[in-house]
């Protein structure tokens, strides 16, 4: 295969007439990669915290995300139990092993079955945290890790995300700044931008929710007073 590598690169260099300018070209590439400068960032995502949350809620609603706002982590089990019963979903959830969800007092809802771990094929409902919300398009960003296995985001019928309001960002550029701040090897195996529940319009251009991924995406947003 190294023959092919040389052939492809050789052909490219010939097409690009790359010879004396090689150093300059490399320099341009290095500089661009090192500075990873933002391009034009839409104004829409530049707002204060309150504005961002309003924008997120408006955008997410357009893509069929349902949102429940509570004022403390302690209120999460009751909110989830209520959501499940309203939507006729089983009172059984698989919760990501995310430490941010350790303090949720699940025992307050004795009728709610809770398992911590990755999703398996039979799980109807999963609960995860999120790395960030992005107001510009109502998108949730999840990073894969032992605390946040990717299967939880794609296998269930309903995916519930529990997120603190202070994770709300304006734009995707803000997300990358935060991902980069994780340091060396900042990219996890998967960065998932999720904008609404799964859908398809492949049959007669009729839009239907729930193609392969979750049919429902629900956000429990925690606005802690004073946070």
């Amino acid at each position, binding site marked *: 295969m190294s023959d092919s590598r040389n*052939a492809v690169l050789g052909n490219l260099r010939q097409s690009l007439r790359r010879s004396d300018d090689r150093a300059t070209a490399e320099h341009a590439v290095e500089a661009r990669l090192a500075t990873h400068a*933002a391009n034009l960032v839409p104004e829409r995502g530049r707002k204060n915290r309150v504005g961002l949350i309003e924008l997120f809620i408006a955008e997410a609603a357009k893509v069929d995300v349902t949102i429940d706002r509570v004022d403390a982590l302690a209120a999460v089990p009751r909110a989830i139990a209520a959501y499940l019963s309203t939507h006729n979903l089983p009172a059984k959830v698989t919760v990501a092993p995310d430490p941010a969800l350790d303090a949720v007092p699940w025992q307050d809802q004795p009728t709610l079955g809770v398992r911590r771990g990755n999703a398996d094929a039979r799980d109807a409902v999963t609960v995860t945290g999120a790395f960030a919300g992005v107001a510009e398009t109502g998108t949730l960003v999840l990073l*894969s890790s032992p605390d946040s296995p*990717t299967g939880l985001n794609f296998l269930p019928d309903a995916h519930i995300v529990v997120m603190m309001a202070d994770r709300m960002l304006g734009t995707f550029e803000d997300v990358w700044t935060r991902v980069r701040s994780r340091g060396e090897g900042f990219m996890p195996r*998967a960065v998932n*931008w999720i904008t609404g529940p*799964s859908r*398809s319009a*492949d*049959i007669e251009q009729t839009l239907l929710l729930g193609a392969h991924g979750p049919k429902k995406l629900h956000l429990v947003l925690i606005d802690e007073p004073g946070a």
Partner: protein
Amino acid sequence: MQSTTRLFDDNSRKALADAPLQQALGKLSSNFTVKRALAAARLPEFEALRDQARDIKDHVLAHLDIYLERFEANVVAQGGVVHWCRDADEARATVLAICHEAGARTATKSKSMITEEIALNDHLEANGIEPIETDLGEYIIQLRHEHPSHLIAPAIHLNKNQVEATFRAAHTDLPPGRNLEEPRSLLEEARAKLRRRFLDADVGITGANMLIAETGSIVTVTNEGNADLTMTLPRVHIAIASIEKIVPTLEDATTLLRVLARSATGQENSVYTTFATGSRRTDDADGPSAFHVVLLDGGRSSLIGGAFQDMLRCIRCGACLNHCPVYGAIGGHAYGWVYSGPIGSVLTPGLIGIAEAAKLPGASTLCGRCEAVCPVRIPLPRLLRQWREKEFEQGLQSKTARFGLGLWAFLARRPQLYRAVVGVVMRILGRLARRHGSFYNLPFAAGWTADRELPAPEGRTFIDQWRARAGGHR
């Protein structure tokens, strides 16, 4: 994939008589076209973002050799493997070898035009590996042994009755009396069928909308979530992409994504955008344990630096198809190869040769709507004209067309003679049609008059009338 572009005329005739296809095409303008316009209008920066998207791709193409090396180094640093392939044969062999090495029997696939280009499914099947398309539209056409007819809506040519018949024929284990009347029940059936396949697959094959040099990531964009199940569940993930899919940084990818979904479907963002980097990390609960990127050249390295380089900016959004009156009349299959619509007419001659694809550059009215909506501002009409010139230079047009063009060129270079000849012809035509004002059949123009009338000239040319007016002077 084997091309049938030589049969373009026949294919088009068939397409015009295909009722479900015509019905589907009729919906394009009220669907994709309207939604794109609304999304573009909602984002004040949209036009400026298109300029930047174009500039990013131009910058990449001018430095593609170096970016590819950086991309490779970063994939390797994350424990992945990059396979370079000159052509379709090498790419097919590479994917097959990875599947064999993994002891694979089945491979799930999410939508990838490159795998269409290299006819991967046939190759895997012939070698004992079952490929399973998982995008709903792709799944339907795989069952029907057809090819995609649109970049982002592969089964757009079918109606729900055809899908129902296909499912009844394929899913024989399900009760024959089941109700499949509604698109919803068809979707549910496909979801249930494919769920098992996702869980059982040994290898997952995805395309990639972009490759990020900075991080060695591949980017997939779907609305269904099938690319994610394809890459998360099996032991091995193979991403296959052509070399021009590189972008420098995460920020550059973000800019392109802002114009991609809006141009494609009018969504602000597609449902799932995934940046996949390397294989499963230590302690991860899921993800593939091996990550391969198969890079296909497929003739692209020779197009760079030449007159057709601009077409390599394409991000496969499908907007030019949705806005093209020719695509809107005949759909995708008539084009006879993987890519259809304006981008197909420009790309196909570049990838399989103008001799094979000589019919395609003519399949355009050059109305310019494609260029007006292309998110990376590819000058599609100009590129089409360039191919027409090449076609003429190489003598690939029909004798009649060459004779006609030759005659016109002869006259056009001799204005006196031109005016004299045209003047005579106009007078004759004007007299012949005096009664109706138009022709219902004309001996040498049956192709026109068979379906519509030809308005008759008034009997005098423009120049005659101009001269007659106020002495022809201002």
